[in-house]
């Protein structure tokens, strides 16, 4: 049994079907939930928290039924919503203590845990200031802290990198990776940016229009493709000349952006590429195995508009 199991989960609104017979099993570690806006990610999270009833189907979280045991689930799960949710006139330290108490921690323990998690998310002296003046990055950190403060067994993070600049985004991703790997808390993280999930998740679930498009280990998405990527440096159309020469040498070569993609049928291919580059007097800048990206799944699967990074 996984951390989250869903069977034929369906949610119909009067006008749209948000989830359509979704079967899903999510285990330990970091799981990325990918899908375009409106693919049903937020609806799924609300059903898993027991806040929204499913039209049909069943789901369990940590072994508890979402319909009848919502309170038990909410005691053991942390939730970081996508939208703003912090009152402007309260200090982060007071707020996180309060939220810990709302999860049932006694006051002294709540204070200790709040101090701990605020340190883990990297909020120092500014925690004593009211949150109205916080930057988006700081607000995201507080939102994450309140999701962790009661030491949950699972955290549901809805678009945690939304609105962050590149530096803050890297920090947030590293933090999420640590939560999954070092803190030992299962993570379900949604994003519409595939590149970031590829970096941190062990497992990726792809939703499209309420359907499960694909669910597998991240490594399966990014496995080696059996291709070599070649880049050469030289005057003029060096890349084209290199490509033509490789084809002439009997290799299957084709351009891929600024690089040349070569099928690595056997070990001799490396030697051939080296020799061809030497014959043309070009500098061999890059010779590396090619990997898939999660976004390729969307190209193959023909899913909606997901923005690759």
């Amino acid at each position, binding site marked *: 049994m996984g951390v989250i199991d869903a069977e034929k989960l369906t949610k119909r609104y009067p006008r749209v079907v948000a989830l359509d017979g979704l079967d899903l099993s999510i285990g330990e570690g970091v799981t990325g939930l990918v899908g375009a806006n409106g693919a049903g990610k937020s609806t799924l999270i609300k059903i898993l928290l027991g*806040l929204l009833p499913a039209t049909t189907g069943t789901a369990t979280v940590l072994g508890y039924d979402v319909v009848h045991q919502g*309170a038990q689930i909410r005691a053991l799960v942390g939730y970081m919503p996508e939208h703003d*949710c912090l009152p402007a006139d309260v200090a982060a330290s007071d707020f996180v203590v309060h939220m810990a108490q709302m999860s049932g921690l006694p006051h002294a323990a709540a204070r200790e845990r709040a101090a701990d998690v605020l340190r883990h998310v990297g909020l120092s002296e500014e925690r004593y200031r009211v949150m109205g003046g916080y930057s988006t990055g700081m607000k995201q950190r507080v939102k994450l802290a309140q999701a962790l403060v009661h030491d949950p067994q699972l955290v549901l993070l809805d678009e945690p990198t939304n609105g962050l600049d590149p530096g803050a985004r890297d920090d947030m991703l590293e933090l999420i990776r640590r939560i999954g790997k070092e803190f030992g808390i299962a993570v379900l993280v949604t994003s519409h940016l595939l590149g970031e999930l590829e970096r941190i998740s062990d497992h990726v679930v792809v939703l499209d229009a309420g359907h499960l498009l694909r669910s597998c280990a991240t490594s399966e998405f990014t496995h080696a493709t059996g291709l070599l990527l070649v880049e050469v440096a030289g005057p003029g159309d060096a890349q084209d000349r290199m490509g033509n020469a490789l084809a002439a040498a009997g290799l299957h070569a084709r351009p891929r952006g600024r690089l040349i993609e070569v099928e690595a049928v056997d070990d001799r291919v490396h030697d051939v590429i080296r020799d061809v580059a030497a014959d043309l007097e070009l500098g061999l800048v890059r010779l590396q195995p090619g990997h898939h990206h999660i976004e390729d799944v969307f190209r193959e699967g023909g899913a909606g508009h997901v923005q690759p990074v």
Partner: protein
Amino acid sequence: MSSPSDHPAPPLGVIHDIGYRPYAGPRLGELSVARSLFVTGLRNCYGLGRSTKSKVLPVLLFVVMLLPALILVAVMVQARLDQQPLPYARYAMVTQLVISVFVASQAPALISRDLRFRTITLYLARPLRRSTYVLVRFASLAAAVFVLVAAPILLLYAGGVMADLPIGRETGDFVPAVVAAALLAMVLAGLSALVSAVTPKRGIAVAAVIVVLLVSFTAVSAIQGIAVEERADTLAQVAGLFSPFTLVDGVQVWLFDGPASTPAPPEGAGMGILFCIVTLVVIAGSVGAMLLRYRKAAAA
């Protein structure tokens, strides 16, 4: 975990990252969580645990509310009066402007805030049931208003006891006034919380509560004045149902035979019972309407 004695003492002034520590302590039930939410809400009504700016108005109003009582006690002691210059039960009516401003400023601060900043999502994602959240928010606000209304009455009572007024008679007047203060607190909290729950914009909620409380009282006073003049007694008494202050005043006049603050307090059993029923319906109705309102908010 290894005991500290296994390791040499670390040098002072070095911060160690001790890593993530799981929590193995107790997790309290809904009752304790509700109590904690109640206390935080009550504190927040007086600006405690909020920004410095948020403390100014409620504390100022609390002081303004106590000031007349303090002066009355001083006068009573100095002039050796043999009774309270202002009956306990009339204090809330005399200071209703202060009470109204407090309610209009703090109900939106407590209720609209969770909706406007969408903090409500975080509460609902925790074990607390939605209905418990609503009831506790109402209770916090009612308790805050009760403290504001009852504190000066308590001060008057203490002054009366110190001035050697007959303690039996004073207690007999004081207890009904406290009961009336509790009823008034619940009526005001219910109405203002409901208004705040449907108007997430704080400024509009403040204005709406002020309108509901002050305009209703002004209208009731005018109608009662005219109706008494015209000897339309029933009309004058029924009009008293339509302002929270005259409503609760009517209840305490009829139930406890207290001093009236309006020209047309309810007379006779029928009218008295009507006042009591309307008071209960207003309290229960506004809490019920809030529960419905939050059912919608949770799904959003």
